[in-house]
């Protein structure tokens, strides 16, 4: 059995963990540039928590190039050639195959109800749903949700470390990047692939999943790019906010109780002085 893949992953994980040891713990992305809860918005040091910004911007440009020349055309073709039903089936199968990872992370986060939903989804969709092709479970009261080890780390108090743009995968963070690697170890299919010598099974699954996902947001991303004056910064902000939303599992952000992510917005109450400048 060839363990070189694991050795490579282990090496990447080791590097990321070493970096994490250097970066301060519990350092959260000041999502808006406001670190923690700041009463006076105007006195803060603008901190994007992006110490690798130059490198990140370069990687971002690289990813965009990959997207323009490979991923987006592939996604557009995929969408053009295959009917919705087929594309949805592809997504359903990929989601189903990811169930063990989602379940593990549900359990690590102590989310028993969600763990139950994940289990039921896997059982129902694999059988009644014909190996995951049809998402029957959704109609039976078990909606889909995703989880990953990055979210698990966050729930247990880990800050994002710092913003990190990964090759191919795009916007991420130190914590979430490490989480990606751990999820690979958590995934039983990785091991099955090795035993039965199915080469690059993970690669194929990731690629197909990536194309399918990309095909579902082509116009949205185009709009975003057209609208941005700094696309890199826009994506960074969107990534952090939607990440925070995922970690909260979509619950409303009660900044008073949630110490992890404070998006307490402080709109100045002397907006009257601002009003005088308009019209």
């Amino acid at each position, binding site marked *: 059995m060839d363990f070189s893949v694991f050795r490579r992953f282990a090496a990447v994980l080791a590097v990321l963990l070493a970096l994490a040891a250097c970066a301060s713990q519990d350092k959260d992305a000041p*999502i808006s540039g406001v670190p923690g809860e700041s009463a006076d918005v*105007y006195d803060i040091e603008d901190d*994007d928590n992006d110490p690798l910004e130059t490198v990140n911007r370069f990687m971002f440009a690289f990813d965009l190039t990959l997207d323009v020349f490979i991923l987006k055309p592939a996604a557009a073709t995929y969408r053009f050639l295959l009917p919705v039903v087929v594309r949805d089936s592809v997504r359903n199968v990929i989601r189903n195959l990811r169930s063990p990872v989602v379940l593990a992370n549900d359990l690590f986060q102590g989310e028993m109800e969600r763990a139950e939903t994940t289990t039921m989804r896997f059982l129902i969709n694999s059988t009644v749903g014909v190996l995951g092709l049809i998402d029957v479970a959704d109609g039976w009261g078990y909606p889909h949700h995703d989880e990953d080890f990055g979210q698990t780390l966050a729930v247990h108090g880990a800050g994002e470390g710092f913003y990190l743009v990964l090759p191919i995968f795009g916007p991420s963070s130190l914590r979430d990047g490490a989480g990606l690697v751990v999820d690979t170890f958590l995934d039983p299919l990785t091991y099955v692939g090795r035993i039965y010598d199915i080469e690059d099974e993970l690669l194929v699954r990731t690629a197909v999943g990536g194309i399918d996902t990309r095909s579902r947001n082509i116009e949205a991303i185009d709009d975003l790019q057209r609208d941005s004056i*700094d696309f890199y910064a826009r994506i960074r902000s969107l990534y952090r906010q939607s990440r925070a*939303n995922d970690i909260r599992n979509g619950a*409303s952000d009660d900044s008073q109780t949630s110490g992890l992510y404070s998006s307490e*917005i402080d709109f*100045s109450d002397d907006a009257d002085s*601002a009003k005088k400048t308009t019209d």
Partner: protein
Amino acid sequence: MRTALRKQRTETSVSRRALLRWINGAIVGVLALAWLPASGRADQADAAGAFLISLTDRSMAELTDESIPADERKQRFRRLFKDNFDIPAIGRFVLGRYWRATDEVARGEFLAVFEDVMVDRFAPQFTGYAGTKFKIGAIREVKEGNQLMVSSTVAPPNSEVVQVDWRLRSSNGEFKVLDVTAQGVSMALTLRSEYGSVLKNSGGKIDTLIALLRERTAKAS
């Protein structure tokens, strides 16, 4: 010595009486707080809900008509936007710490081009949203009653339901929208982060930002 002791006792009983009086007063005060403003709070929450329903109804009525020309839609959107959103407060928040360093003229220019950018960005979005259903959910007060957070769900005709939260400013019974958050992503925070990055990379020059935004609106029209 006896006089000293007696003095001590009367002092103690005086302070104890004062303490009891204070406690009584506090209990009455707390009860009063619990009873009275509750009705006021409920009224404000209702009014906020009504404001939002009215705004979304008007938006649907005026903006989703596919037959009107794009310019007309932009005009209508601009009117609704100016009337119902606190643009100066939003603009000020979006500039963050750079607002203070900006002079009056530049502030005015920024707010004007910011409004144009918002109109160009959002007015066209309404086509294809006819028949969208809004449902108001929980409403809670923040910032000692000066602001309210309203949760809602938006169900477009051919799309998934989206969770949208609104931050409203309340002053003298009038409401203005400060921020819209969809699926956890806040419009104000996103723009603030992006413009902040542009300003940081251009050494804090607001003119660079204004020029970039003007370029954006020129492209859109």
